[in-house]
């Protein structure tokens, strides 16, 4: 079942703060959010910064990329290379639980996170 949840768009940082084809972590309402600038595809993604495998605040420092015929965008945890879909948050190569993803948009070079 899907429900529509109203989100508040919070300005978080400048688009130029996040390296092209890389990520950085932002502090949003006391939570650590990993923001990814997938410049190669012209896409932006946001997920929790915590890798569920060893409970480390690290995902923003992971390498991003894609996998499969659908080119599913993903991020790899630097510690033990667990990979997670940037679209759904699902773990793609192990049994870890899925990570939280957040709505994200960029307007006038400002990055906004959709906060529920």
């Amino acid at each position, binding site marked *: 079942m899907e429900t529509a949840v109203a989100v508040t768009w919070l300005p978080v940082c400048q688009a130029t703060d996040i390296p092209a084809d890389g990520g*950085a972590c932002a502090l949003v309402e006391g939570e650590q959010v990993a923001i990814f600038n997938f410049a190669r595809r012209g896409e932006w993604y946001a997920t929790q910064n915590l890798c569920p495998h060893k409970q480390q605040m690290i995902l923003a420092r992971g390498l991003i990329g894609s996998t499969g015929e659908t080119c599913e965008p993903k991020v790899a945890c630097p510690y033990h290379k667990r990979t997670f879909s940037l679209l759904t948050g699902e773990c793609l190569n192990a049994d870890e639980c899925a990570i939280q993803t957040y709505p994200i948009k960029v307007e006038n070079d400002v990055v906004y996170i959709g906060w529920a």
Partner: protein
Amino acid sequence: MPRQIDTAGSAMLQSKLEALGLKIHLSKATSHIGGDGKIDSLHFGDGSILEVDMLVISAGIRPRDELAKLAGLEVGMRGGIVVNDTMQTSDQRIFAIGECALHSGMIYGLVAPGYDMAEVVVSQLLQGARAFTGYDMSSKLKLIGVDVASFGDPFIAEPHSRSIVFEDAHSGVYKRINISPDGKYLLGGVLIGDAEAYNMLLQTVNNKIALPPHPEDLILGARGGEASEGAGVMSLPDEALVCSCEAVTKGMICDAVTELGATSVDAMKKCNKAGTGCGGCVPMVKDLINGTLTAQGAYIKNVLCEHFDYSRQELFDLLKINDIKTYSAALDHFGTGDGCEVCKPAVGSILAGLWNDLIVKQNVIQDTNDRYLANIQKGGSYSVMPRMAGGEVSPSQLMAIGRIAEKYNLYTKITGGQRIDMFGAHVSDLPDIWEELIKEGFESGHAYGKSLRTVKSCVGSTWCRYGLHDSVSFAIEIENRYKGIRSPHKMKSGVSGCVRECAEAQAKDFGVIATEKGWNLYVCGNGGAKPQHAQLLAGDIDGPTLLKYLDRFMMFYIKTADPLMRTATWLNKMDGGIAYLRNVVVNDSLGICADLEAEIELLIKNYHCEWKEVVENPELRKQFTHFVNAPKVKDPTMEFAEMRGQKMSKAW
């Protein structure tokens, strides 16, 4: 659960779950649920009371046969619509499938037999002849992180079978296999705590595969001697059911490889849905695909990853010939998709091996250690390691290290490579720490890079009464010559001043030992998980000759090894081994030595201290923060504990 595992297994599972902090109440009959308006307690038959906030009821399977009863169909004593082998109820025009159906006194609560029953009904409707003949209830699941599996007949006992039981209360592992009295066949078993062998054991039961002479190896693994490789997946019969969710056999998988060209798990899923249900068979499917390809004599190409259809060596040449200097250009010209965590650092390593440009210019393709120019440790802190070539350090430098480590509250330790590592640095402190270290005359130690780490040395002829030559000076010269050069994997080296070998040079990627007449050069040694002694490449040579051979050796390795392949493995895989390598490096049998020397000369010339570049560049410094929108805030989740008067990272 009592239908799946035996008493001893249950006890092991119970203690394993209790170790996780769960309290288990057994043999409790609930007399009533207490509370007013909301639940607050459970009252048991023995008079005891348990206070609770929430109650979750696991009701097992209860066949919904109300409609069938009203319709006058025959139902079982304890519920369930009675069906025959074609899934017909007592009224042959009505079928029942799934967990409402009672077949031969059994209710099946799993999805796979449900699918099977559906196929039987479809077959009947289409005038086919398929029948349902019961279903293997073997299953494997994870219970709050604990593996639990049972297969075949888990309970069969003497005289119909003999059991082999392995019980390790320390790590919470219980394994039982039941074998036929003649020791030839596996009949069933139970696995608690470690169910890795489940797939293979299930196949062994279902296909009546003859057991090896020591069936205990099935649950204990081969101990000592040669590992038994006979019982691999390729030895299964074609009718062996590999994916039980989708009923795919080994024969179907191998046919999909040979006839339909399905050579990846994803392609296989599209062909026959193997591995799309629970996914438990995916490792086996992968082995079957590779096994079939190998059996066909197919050339399994050693490509970087799904994005680059080239080996590292091929891509190295392509990027060189086409003068490509960025990852994006490499992907655009020779790759597909958007890259991944495998090809990004691999291409980064190739580009560094070609041009030795500053790696922080393309830091988003580097693994975290190379991205932050420090080694990430548990908890998200980094360690800092300045170069101390040859292990030589002055008293004033030692004091500087002490002062800086104290100022930034860092744990200090002497490493195996004869230098000092400082642990527990916050990412945002790294540029400040390095600014101070550089002021004291230090430079990056490249401990974070796949590059030359250290050249360890013994004290040599300057002090030692046995020393033949000055091993420290030579070690410093070698370390400074090759420092910062990126290679397929890290490289370690050592120089010993005499045959007593205090620098352990023969355990290194390249090692030098002084002789009466000059130096011996050894290559491709390795410590690590599989220690291997280095082999003599050239003996009794002078210093300049040794450096010339080393130049060629190192560049040949950089150009031809696979990603993350140490020199020892590289040599082991090389046709002709050390004799071939000696021919290439010493006798120039391929006629490439002049090129190799020119190429490494370029890398040596382009050396820069990466930390100096960062410290002097405000834009680069800015990237060393935890929160991009709060650069001064350190990660609040990072915690340290204390041990022997210093800090240590918290266990994860």
